[in-house]
C-alpha cells in the first residue's frame, strides 16, 4: 500500500520544535544535537542496572571489612566487649543488613570469577582454554576456603 509521495502528518510526542529566530548554524555547518545524559542513565537497560549493582557490591566489601575490624577489637578487649559485639550482631536490623550485604558479596564473587577468564586469553598449544577451566578452579577454591574458615573458627 503506497501513498505516493505523501508523508503522513508527523506525530510529535516530544514538545513541538520551536522555530528559532534564525536556523541554528555554527560558522560552517548546522548545529549538531548532543543528547544530554541523565543521572539515571543506568536505569535504561537491565544490563546497566546489573553493572551498577555489581559496582555497588564494593560497599558491601567495605562494610564487611569494617565489621571484621570491630570484631577483632571486641575479641581482643575481653569477654565483655565480645559479648556486646555478639549482642549487637544479633539485632534484627544488623541481621537484615548483613543478609543484604552477603547477597552483594555473593554478587561480587560470582561476577568476579565469571569475568576472570575474559581477562586472560590463555592458549594451550594454540587452542583457547575454555572459560570454565579458569573460573571453575576459582569456585572450588572459594568453597574450600569457606569450609576451612568455618572449620578453624568453629573448633575454638
Amino acid at each position, binding site marked *: 500500500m503506497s501513498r505516493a509521495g505523501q508523508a503522513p502528518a508527523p506525530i510529535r510526542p516530544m514538545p513541538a520544535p520551536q522555530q528559532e529566530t534564525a536556523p541554528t548554524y555554527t560558522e560552517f555547518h548546522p548545529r549538531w544535537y548532543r543528547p544530554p*545524559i541523565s*543521572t539515571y542513565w*543506568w536505569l535504561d537497560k537491565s544490563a546497566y542496572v546489573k553493572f*551498577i549493582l555489581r*559496582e*555497588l557490591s*564494593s*560497599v558491601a*566489601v*567495605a562494610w*564487611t*571489612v*569494617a*565489621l*571484621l*575490624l570491630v*570484631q*577483632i*577489637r571486641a*575479641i*581482643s578487649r*575481653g*569477654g565483655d566487649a*565480645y*559479648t556486646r559485639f*555478639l549482642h549487637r*550482631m*544479633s539485632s534484627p536490623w*544488623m*541481621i537484615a543488613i*548483613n*543478609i543484604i*550485604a*552477603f547477597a552483594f*558479596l*555473593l554478587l*561480587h*564473587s560470582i561476577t*568476579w*570469577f565469571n569475568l576472570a577468564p575474559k581477562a586472560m586469553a590463555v592458549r594451550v598449544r594454540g587452542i583457547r582454554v575454555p572459560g570454565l577451566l579458569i573460573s571453575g578452579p*576459582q569456585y572450588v*577454591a*572459594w568453597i574450600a*576456603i*569457606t569450609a576451612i*574458615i*568455618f572449620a*578453624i*573458627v*568453629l573448633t*575454638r
Partner: protein
Amino acid sequence: MVNKETEPIFWTLFSAGGVVAALFLPAQLLLFGIAVPLGWVHVPAQAGMLALLQSPITRIYLLIVCSLPLFHFAHRFRYTLYDGLQIKHLNEMVFAGCYGVAVVGTLLAAYLVVTV
C-alpha cells in the same frame, strides 16, 4: 594523583583486593554476620578466638583480608561516583575520600592486628 603512571598501581590493588574479597569475605560475613546470630552454629568462645587471633598467621591473614579489599572498594567506588553520579568535577575530593578510607582502614587493621 590520578595519571597514567599511577593508574596501573591502583588497578593492581583493585584486582588483588577483588580476588581476596571474593575468596575470603563471604565466609567471614556468613559466619559472624548471619550464622552465629541466627544460631545456625554455636558461638565460638572468646578465649579460643583470642588465641586464634594471636597466632602470627592469623595476624598476617587479617591484615591482608582487611587492607586489600578496602583498596578494591576505593577504586571501584571512585569510578561508580564518576560514572553513576557524574561528579567528575569533584575529582580530588572523591579520590581523597575513597582512598582515605582505604588507608585509614589499613592503618587501623595494622594497629589492631599488632596489639591483639
